[in-house]
Structure formats: structure tokens, C-alpha cells
């Protein structure tokens, strides 16, 4: 079995700060990490490798520094790694990104036929959840999103059974391979990197492909040109005109503060009092 896992290197959003005056993102010193959602996809692939035997190829598109994310994946146990990087990809939206990745997957498929493609649910920087479905549609693969578990793989029948989170419940789905699976977070726990794999990761020659090597002939299908959407404005949320009325009283006793608060709130919002009485 051959599994491709698409991953992305992202800035750790917990550490992103916005410049208070210019409203621009301050990227300096923000560490780059593997998109946390992608680790669930990688672990699910590695579990299938343990159970059925598989070759796991990790794929990413990004700047040259994204190679670090691929090495991280190798250290967890992935077998191969491909970095697709080209200036022509700059400014890609989700449609253009899915075009580039789908094309790269087709190239990988030529070397060794692919049974499954895994992606994370979404990325923490883009938060779109659109690239997985985009790749599946471009490659005409069956699409299974928000999968919580791959129950079984039948390599002879080319079938896979998965549990998929849907609104209000879990769907148990059977489909044929090759298919693309986006994995929901919290479904498994990433294993520790072994010493042997860490050594391997440090020496592993990552395959680096430019646009042509990734099989993309038409430059207008990727980057800004291949992106139907444009960002027309970036701005900070407006502060509310009026700040909170801070409740104060002479005693500053919690009890007095609470009573004063309720009196003020209910005087201004009499309906709310009824709502609470109803709810309680």
C-alpha cells in the first residue's frame, strides 16, 4: 500500500502578534511548526503502515524552509518526502494550491501507485478546509472528510471502511481506493520519534521539485494567476465605541458589587431578567 500524506508548515498561531500601530503580522521570531491537524493524518497513515504494511510519502508545498516539516515527518516514521517549491506558487489560494498538490501527487503516483491520500482537517493559518476536497476532485478520487478512524482496508478488493463525523452523528462509509481522507483532530496521538528515525530524518535527501518537476505545465493554473480569490483588505477588529461600565461601590465588598451589578443590568435590560427567570 502506498499512502501520501499532505502536510503544511505553518507559523505557530499561538505566538503570532499583531503590530499595534501598523496592524501587520509580526512574523519575526514566530516558530514554524507542522500544522497540528496534519499530525493526526500522519499518525493515521503510520498506523495503517504498522497494521497492513505501507510506504508513507509526505508531501508539502511551500518555501524551501518547509523542508524542516518534512524531516519532522520522517522522524515520526514516514518513508519518503517531497517538497514542491517554486516562486510561481506565490500567492496561491486554495484552488491553485489544490492544483499544484494534485499535480505533484500524480507524479508520485507514477513512481508507485497510490492507494490513499491523507490530509489534516484544515490548517491553523488558513482555516479553510478546502484544499483536501480540492485535491480529491481534481484527481477524481473519492472524498471522505472529517474521518475519525480508518476501520479497515481491503487491499485485494481496493476498499476502505471509515468512520466519518457528520452533523449529529457518525457515518460508517465504505468506498474504493484510491481515495482522499481528511482526518479529524483528537482521533489519535502522535507517536514519539525513534532515535533511528531521527538519524534517518537528519540525513534523508528530501526530493525538491520545482513547477515543471511537479508536472505543472500551465503557469496560469498556480500562484496568483491561478487563484480566483484576492484579498482586498486586511484590518484589525474595531474596538467597541463604549467600554465596559466598571461596577464600583464604596465597600468594594463582593456581595455589594454583585447586587449593584444586577440592579444596573436589569434596570437597563428588563427583558433579560425574565429570560433568566425562565431559564433557571
Amino acid at each position, binding site marked *: 500500500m502506498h499512502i501520501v500524506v499532505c502536510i503544511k508548515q505553518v507559523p505557530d498561531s499561538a505566538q503570532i502578534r499583531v503590530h499595534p500601530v501598523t496592524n501587520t503580522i509580526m512574523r519575526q521570531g514566530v516558530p514554524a511548526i507542522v500544522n497540528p491537524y496534519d499530525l493526526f493524518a500522519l499518525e493515521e497513515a503510520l498506523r495503517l503502515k504498522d497494521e497492513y504494511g505501507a510506504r508513507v510519502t509526505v508531501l508539502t508545498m511551500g518555501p524551501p524552509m518547509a523542508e524542516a516539516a518534512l524531516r519532522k515527518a520522517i522522524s515520526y516514521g514516514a518513508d519518503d518526502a517531497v517538497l514542491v517549491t517554486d516562486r510561481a506558487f506565490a500567492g496561491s489560494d486554495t484552488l491553485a494550491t489544490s492544483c499544484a498538490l494534485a499535480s505533484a501527487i500524480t507524479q508520485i503516483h507514477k513512481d508507485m501507485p497510490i492507494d490513499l491520500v491523507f490530509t489534516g482537517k484544515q490548517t491553523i493559518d488558513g482555516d479553510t478546509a478546502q484544499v*483536501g476536497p480540492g485535491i480529491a476532485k481534481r484527481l477524481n478520487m473519492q472524498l471522505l472528510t472529517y474521518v475519525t478512524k480508518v476501520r479497515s482496508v481491503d487491499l485485494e478488493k481496493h476498499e476502505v471502511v471509515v468512520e466519518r463525523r457528520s452533523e449529529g452523528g457518525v457515518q460508517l462509509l465504505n468506498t474504493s481506493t484510491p481515495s482522499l481522507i481528511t482526518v479529524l483532530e483528537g482521533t489519535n496521538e502522535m507517536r514519539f520519534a525513534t532515535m533511528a528515525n531521527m538519524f534517518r530524518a537528519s540525513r534523508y535527501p528530501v526530493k525538491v521539485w520545482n513547477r515543471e518537476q511537479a508536472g505543472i505545465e500551465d503557469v496560469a493554473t498556480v500562484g496568483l494567476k491561478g487563484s480566483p480569490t484576492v484579498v482586498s483588505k486586511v484590518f484589525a477588529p474595531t474596538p467597541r465605541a463604549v467600554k465596559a461600565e466598571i461596577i464600583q461601590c464604596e465597600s468594594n465588598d463582593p456581595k455589594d458589587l454583585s447586587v449593584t451589578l444586577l440592579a444596573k443590568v436589569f434596570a437597563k435590560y428588563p427583558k433579560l431578567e425574565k429570560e433568566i427567570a425562565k431559564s433557571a
Partner: protein
Amino acid sequence: MSEVPAAKKPLGKKRIELDDRLKAYKGIWVFIEHERGKIHPVSLELLGEGRKLADNLGVELAGVVMGVPNETTRSFCNEAFFHGADLCYLMEDELLTDYRNEPFTKGLTDLVNKYQPEIMLLGATTLGRDLAGSVATTLKTGLTADCTELNVDVEARSLLATRPTFGGSLLCTIQTLNYRPQMATVRPRVMPMPEKDTSRTGRIIEDKLGMFEKDIITKVLEFIPDAMQDKPQLPFADIIVSGGRGMKKPENFKLIWDLAEVLGAEVGATRPVVQAGWVDLERQVGQSGKTVRPKLYIAVGISGAIQHRVGMDASDVIIAINSDANAPIFDFAHYGIVGNAMTILPALTEAFKAHLATARKAG
């Protein structure tokens, strides 16, 4: 929300004269999502928002209803009319029983190609994101995910789709210029629910899916419904009491639960608290959690980081308790108490209890 002067950039400079093929795309569509006999509330919220956009552009608002052939499915068209739609596209087929990507993608893509809407909106739910991403790629058009605000540039007939970016630290407005339809998914509970007007009617245009079960590769073997009773329904709660890192210790969260019990409220939390394992993931409010719009939101020990704010900003009344008088939460809460949450919470719980007892006697 409007932009901050420092970030002001020229808008619409890239305006492109639409070619005649794209000019033929007219009207606004809302995909009506439903499951087990009920419309997802986000679809009705979108009809309310879609109505405004349609009136601005001077076009019709349509609902798209896809499902099994029966009365319930047809009744969703009426629901759509009651909430603002002028017409509905109805596609009934046994193959549309459970949601599956393949038949729904084909059905919706065919409808778009045939009737050509200029804007199409879906809820940013698991179903909506799965379907929107597939349809947009098939149509090779632009799709903006998880929007929190919609507008139109009437002159350019362009959808201005605004969404949080960089983990919610900033907002960005995204446009799809020379592609149609312009697609967006919108976060549930961000837009207000429109008033229901049962006197409204509309026309129904029916169409066929034109697929056979044997064409569809993915099969649903089983559906295991969630045990609804023990799942918190945070997005629809009228009152929420939320705690953040300022609660200091997991044990202190009991004070939050105590107040919630007196108020008949749901308990919410910030991401750090959920990540620390103090509270269930289902209760996380904010950018990577749930969006809520209760009538009363009590934020305790929550600094008010933008990631949390985007999930609860639309609450009718916000009361904040925080020991730091400079915490950003006081910039957008309606009332605040500066002080130690561990002493104020029990007092507040008692005050509510006493107030409710008096109100009951009086009522």
C-alpha cells in the same frame, strides 16, 4: 466592523469588467442544509443575510433544497420562503437520503451550471465545507471559507467576504473577481436569525439528479447518531458562563458550574483551559471552538484575546470579571467587575439566587 485607518488600503482597484458569459450569472443562492427532518439554523441565518445582499443588488434570493422525495423535503421550500427566499430549486431523489459527497456535488454543480447564480452561500458546517470545497473546485471558481461578515460592492457586483485570519488576530476581506459564482461558507450563529413571515410564498423550480446508485462509489453502511442528551448545545444557549485561565486551578471551575446551575446556563471556556483538560472540548468558545450569541455571557478570568472574542462578540449582554483592570475584555464587555474571581463568583451566584427568589415571589 470597519477598517482601522492605519490599515486602509485602496479597495476594488483590480476591478475587472465581466465578460458576457459571466454577466449572465444572476441572483443569490443559499444551500438549505438539513438532517433528519430539520433545517440547519445556519441556512435560515444565511437567508436573512442573503435577503439583504439580494435587495442591494436588485436580484432574487433562492434556496436550494436537495433531499429524498417526500413532504418534509418539500416543506423546506416553504421554510425558505418564510425566511426570505423568492424561489427554491428543488432536487428530490432517493440517492440524496444521507449526505454523500458524490451525488450532492454533482446535483449542486449541475444546478449552478444550468441556472447560473452570481453568489452562492453555504453554512460552514462539516457538510457545508465538504460540499462547498468540492463544488468550487469542480466549477473552478473562488470560495471563501468560514466568513463572519458579508457585503456586496454593488457597482462591481462583487461579494465582499470577510473572515478572521491568522488565528483570528486580524480580519480580511476576500473577493472573487472574474469568476462566477462567487462562493462563501459562513460560520453558524454569526448572522442573526431573520424574522419568520409565514405569509411569504415563492415559486419552486424542480430538477433531476440524473444518477443511479451504481454510479456512486461511496456507500453509507451505518449512521450512528450522537447521544444528544449529554452533549452541550453551546451555540444555542441563551445564557453562558465561561471561565478562562484566570480561574487559576481546575478545582475553581466548580464556581463557574455553580453560577451556571443557578442561571440554567451552559458552561463555556477558552482554548487554554480546554487544552489544559479542565473542561471538555465541546465547551470551547472562540476562533477554533464554537461561536455563540447568547442573551447573557458572563466571562470570568478571561482576558479577552481576539481568538476568544470572535466567538462571543455578538452576545446581547456581556459581563466580565477579571483581576486586571486593563484586560482587553473590558474594551468590549458591557459591564465589568475588577477583582478576584474566586471571591466575586460565590457572591454573584448568591445575588442571582436572591434576585430570582424575589422575582418568583413577585411573579
